[in-house]
């Protein structure tokens, strides 16, 4: 898509601009310094919050900042007649109370740390099998051949859908999240997901199994079955939010290690640092920016915000804010003070954060166990996705 160059980042920001996707860090540093609440008129307009203080304040003020629109990229065009739409959005992420409250309560036990512990063995085996597929070759695309292959298969297991469709699921989710500027791709992704889930839901009605879709179909809320639109919305959320995000975090962590052999060597020599290292990767390379919509005219940090305005809560920039984190731009594997908000903050804290953390930790542990030294391939051309979710999509590395 043709894109006008950014005039200046304070009043004309574009989170899909190639310069921002490639290196948002310097832009955030500049904005936090000179214009912490930035503005754009692109795509019907939006505000961009960049400091830890402002991002967490907005996340907690759910009366002013509604979750009814969480997409960072608003489509330029209105939906056309005949377009499939998710009637209830993606509860609970794109809803406010009361829908948010009860749908979140339904979902949370599926991602409790006890449940996530049960997925660890299969995640580890999956990582080992993936590595086994390329270790002899001495090189791999660690984003496409490894990171991208992990979360989708665990999510498929939770939903109860076949992991042989992993590439299809990944394609739909990328269409929705990474190509939000491209109306045809978004339409293809949304239709793919809805049509697929409608069929799966019908199948679970007849033949319940031990999976999340079955539970949603057969659970009652206030004495009645859950509306099918809500069931499909929740299942679609798990698919959309559980794949691209964690894969991006795994990829960015590997990108850091490939480029920082001292950190790799230290993590191999001192595996007891893994827990703080994982939190540090999540802080320094947080993948996800979320949006909110302003519910009433208000002033926020001197900026006149109007009902209906889109506000981007830039969690990745908050996590690099030097006013809150010491040496915010450095990756410190044993960082102690680390109240990062990679999974958000307040009542919309990522419901899948336990799962994401486990997948990231196991993916890095298994990689380092079998590939303790590796580096970027000569002349490697790394590509990044950005906008709502930032992470490497092509990441060629070599190892002895």
């Amino acid at each position: 898509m043709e894109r006008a160059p950014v005039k200046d980042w304070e009043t004309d920001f574009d989170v899909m601009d190639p310069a921002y996707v490639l290196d948002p860090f310097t832009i955030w540093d500049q904005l936090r310094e000179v214009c912490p609440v930035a503005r754009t008129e692109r795509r019907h307009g939006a505000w961009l919050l960049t400091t830890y203080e402002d991002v967490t304040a907005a996340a907690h003020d759910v009366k002013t900042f509604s979750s009814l629109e969480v997409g960072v990229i608003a489509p330029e065009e209105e939906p056309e007649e005949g377009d499939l739409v998710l009637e209830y959005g993606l509860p609970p992420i794109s809803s406010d109370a009361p829908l948010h409250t009860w749908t979140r309560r339904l979902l949370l036990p599926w991602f409790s740390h006890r449940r996530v512990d049960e997925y660890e063995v299969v995640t580890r085996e999956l990582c080992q099998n993936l590595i086994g597929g390329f270790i002899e070759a001495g090189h791999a695309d660690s984003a496409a051949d490894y990171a991208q292959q992990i979360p989708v298969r665990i999510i498929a297991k939770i939903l109860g859908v076949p992991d042989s469709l992993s590439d299809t699921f990944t394609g739909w989710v990328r269409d929705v999240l990474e190509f939000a500027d491209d109306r045809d791709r978004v339409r293809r992704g949304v239709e793919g997901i809805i049509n697929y889930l409608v069929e799966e839901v019908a199948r679970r009605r007849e033949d319940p199994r031990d999976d999340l879709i079955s539970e949603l179909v057969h659970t009652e809320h206030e004495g009645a079955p859950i509306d099918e639109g809500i069931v499909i919305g929740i299942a679609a959320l798990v698919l959309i939010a559980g794949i691209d995000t964690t894969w991006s975090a795994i990829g960015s962590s590997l990108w850091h290690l490939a480029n920082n052999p001292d950190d790799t060597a230290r993590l191999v020599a001192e595996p007891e640092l893994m827990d703080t290292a994982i939190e540090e990767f999540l802080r320094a390379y947080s993948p996800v920016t979320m949006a909110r919509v302003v519910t009433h005219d208000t002033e926020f940090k001197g900026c006149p915000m109007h009902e209906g305005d889109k506000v981007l809560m830039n969690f990745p920039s908050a996590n690099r804010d030097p006013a809150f984190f010491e040496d915010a731009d450095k990756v410190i594997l044993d960082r102690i003070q680390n109240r990062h908000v990679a999974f958000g903050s307040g009542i919309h804290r990522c419901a899948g954060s336990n799962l994401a953390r486990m997948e990231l930790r196991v993916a890095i542990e298994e990689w380092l166990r079998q590939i303790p030294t590796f580096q970027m391939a000569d002349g490697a051309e790394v590509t990044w996705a950005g906008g709502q979710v930032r992470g490497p999509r092509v990441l060629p590395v070599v190892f002895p």
Partner: protein
Amino acid sequence: MRITVDASKCQGHARCYALAPELFDVDDYGQSTVRIDGDVPVELEDRARLASANCPEFAIDIVE
């Protein structure tokens, strides 16, 4: 050293559990609780500080 979790602030990030499972548990809905009675064992004091310093909701208080 004593530790407390403010239930009204906790949002279930479970960072305390990830970093100090000996000291904290988190229920199926994300509510964290302190697992021990009384003083934090001396050998776990650093873990308690780490958990507190990683809570995004400032929900863990430490009294030394």
